[in-house]
């Protein structure tokens, strides 16, 4: 099942930590509650709160499946964006800024030591990857795959299908919250514009370009997307618009067209295409070997 609420959860984590950790005052125009908590405490609270919100989202959506699930999570995502935009005392459309000054001591000033945050992000990414690989093999992970493949059979075997979906949603929210926190420490600001529908769709485009059914696809898709973004940015196609990301007409159109082509040509994305090529090569090799063997057999 595809959830489109991840971006929203990412943003919610960022906004929570922005509200908890920053302090108001001198020259601060940015919104937020400015509770001024200790950043490490704020980190833990933000992760927990986002996971809880994820569990609530999951509980509401859990009884639906497939395309309904996609619609409902998309709705969550857009509602979260408008909530952040319109509830002005926690965020407002301009969002919260200056969060990068309130990182925990073990990361320190992000501008002075950008490498520390980089290594933390790398470690978190690696840890999340390993954690997912681990969870997939636990009984819980196995029953999740069962719920994915055949919810009716899992239900008749006595598994609580909505509960499993809810827990999976909570786990995904936990991962999204880590991403959101790392993002605000790095960029220093979070606003509804970071989590609106185009951003949600960008994330989905990355996932689809890479391949929806493989964990590695997420990395590949993000990489390809950023490469396209960097090279297409200054490139304008006559007739499609006058170029530049601000005024539209080139970048998103080209990404949209690439996305359309990939969806039409290879539903498994680039990883899917790669798997198919590997399978094809293996099949040809297999054929050759059988041919050799039969030739050898004929020689005898």
């Amino acid at each position, binding site marked *: 099942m*595809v959830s489109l609420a991840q971006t929203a959860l990412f943003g919610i984590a960022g906004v929570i930590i922005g509200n908890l950790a920053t302090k108001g005052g001198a020259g601060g125009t940015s919104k937020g509650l400015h509770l001024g908590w200790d950043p490490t405490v704020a980190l833990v609270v933000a992760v927990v709160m986002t996971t809880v919100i994820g569990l*609530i989202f999951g509980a*509401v*959506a859990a*009884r*639906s499946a*497939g*395309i*309904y699930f*996609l*619609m*409902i999570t*998309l*709705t*969550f995502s*857009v*509602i*979260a*964006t*408008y*909530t952040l935009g*319109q*509830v*002005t*005392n926690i965020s*407002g459309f301009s969002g919260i800024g200056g969060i990068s000054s309130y990182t925990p001591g073990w990361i320190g000033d992000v501008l002075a030591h950008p490498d520390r945050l980089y290594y933390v992000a790398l470690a978190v990414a690696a840890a999340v990857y390993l954690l997912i690989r681990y969870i997939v093999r636990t009984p819980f992970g196995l029953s999740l795959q069962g719920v994915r493949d055949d919810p009716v059979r899992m239900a008749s075997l006595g598994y609580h299908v909505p509960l499993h979906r809810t827990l999976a949603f909570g786990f995904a929210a936990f991962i999204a919250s880590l991403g959101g926190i790392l993002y605000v420490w790095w960029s220093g600001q979070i606003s509804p514009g970071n989590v*609106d*529908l*185009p951003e949600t*769709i960008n994330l*989905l*485009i990355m996932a*689809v370009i890479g391949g929806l059914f493989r964990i590695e696809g997420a990395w590949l898709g993000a990489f390809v997307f950023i490469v396209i973004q960097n090279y297409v940015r200054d490139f304008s196609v006559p007739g*499609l*618009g*006058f170029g530049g990301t*601000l*005024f*539209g*007409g*080139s*970048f*998103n*159109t080209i*990404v*949209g*067209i690439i*996305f*359309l082509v990939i*969806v*039409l040509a290879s*539903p498994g994305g680039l990883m899917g295409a790669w798997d198919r090529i590997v399978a094809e090569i293996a099949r040809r090799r297999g054929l050759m070997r059988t041919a050799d063997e039969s030739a050898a057999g004929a020689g005898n």
Partner: protein
Amino acid sequence: MPKIVVALAVLFAILYVAVIAEQSPATGGGGWRTTTFGSAINDPGSFLRVLLDSITFAGALFIVASGFALIFGLMRVVNMAHGSFYLLGGYIAYEIQQTMTGQGFSIPSSEVNTWDWLVPLLVAVPCIAVVGFVTQQAFLRWNQGQELRQALITIAIAVIIADQIIAHFPRSVSTGAQRLGGNAVDLTWPGWTDRLVDLHVWGVYYSLARLVMLAIGLAIGIGLWLWLYRTKTGMVIRAGVDDQKMTAALGINIQRTFAISFVVGSALAGLGSVVWASQGNIASGQDAQWLLNSLVVVIVGGMGSIFGAAAGAILYAFVLDFSGSYLPTAGADCCTQYSPIFTFILIALVLAFRPRGLFGRDG
């Protein structure tokens, strides 16, 4: 037990609007009971106005969302480009109205006669119908049954259309900051609608344009009902909603039916756009808003039923307008709008008891 809690919560909301709320004092903040208008007993005129606002808005919502529901109900296609169709329809109508009146960026309503409104509508709606037809025939037809893939295809189309709108609209604005970039522009109702009607109830005068909007919504609803329940095409469509394979097996050309309903569904997005853009405005970014609107209406009302779309539109419009007007106003914080949170609560409540929406059926 959960049902009792929900019933109590709804009862409290009704009581709050009816009697508990009180008007905010001229100065100072006020407490949890202060709202913009005070309670319905205290200020029935404002209550009636908010009520009419929600019902007329529900008319516009219904037009757009019923198109989405028609496409979704029959083909199981979540048309993510519905919001983009909406946006494109509004801009096309705006360009034609500009060309016809030649009034520049903002047109006074008195300069617009009925034809200056009707012709843009009659051009924009078929344009969107054609866009829908091409989308369905070129991209969706041969992916029938692959729901996720179809949704992804419509997302790609939505991204492309949204970006092309930013690059090319509004183009008839000759100079200045409003030109291109998907800036906000106003469609204008014909001049005769620009007046307030005396309702003779609690001294309320109400906008004729909004009543016209409601009338159009009702007309579309009745038209759709007649079409779906009193014609052969409608019968085939309903059969297709219930069991697509069986319908095809009976020798009915289901592909033709698919094409027809996709065209009608898209055209409704264009029509709703012209109607609502005449009331408010049209601007890049509203595609997300209207995709959300359509999704909420369909999720709440139930998948693939026009009664569901009507019920969903009314409930959603009530939640939006009443939470805007009857929530406590918190002192200095002027601009907080909690309506998105209430939208979420509405969805959560409906899905908790009816996972397929109010009028949805299992299967």
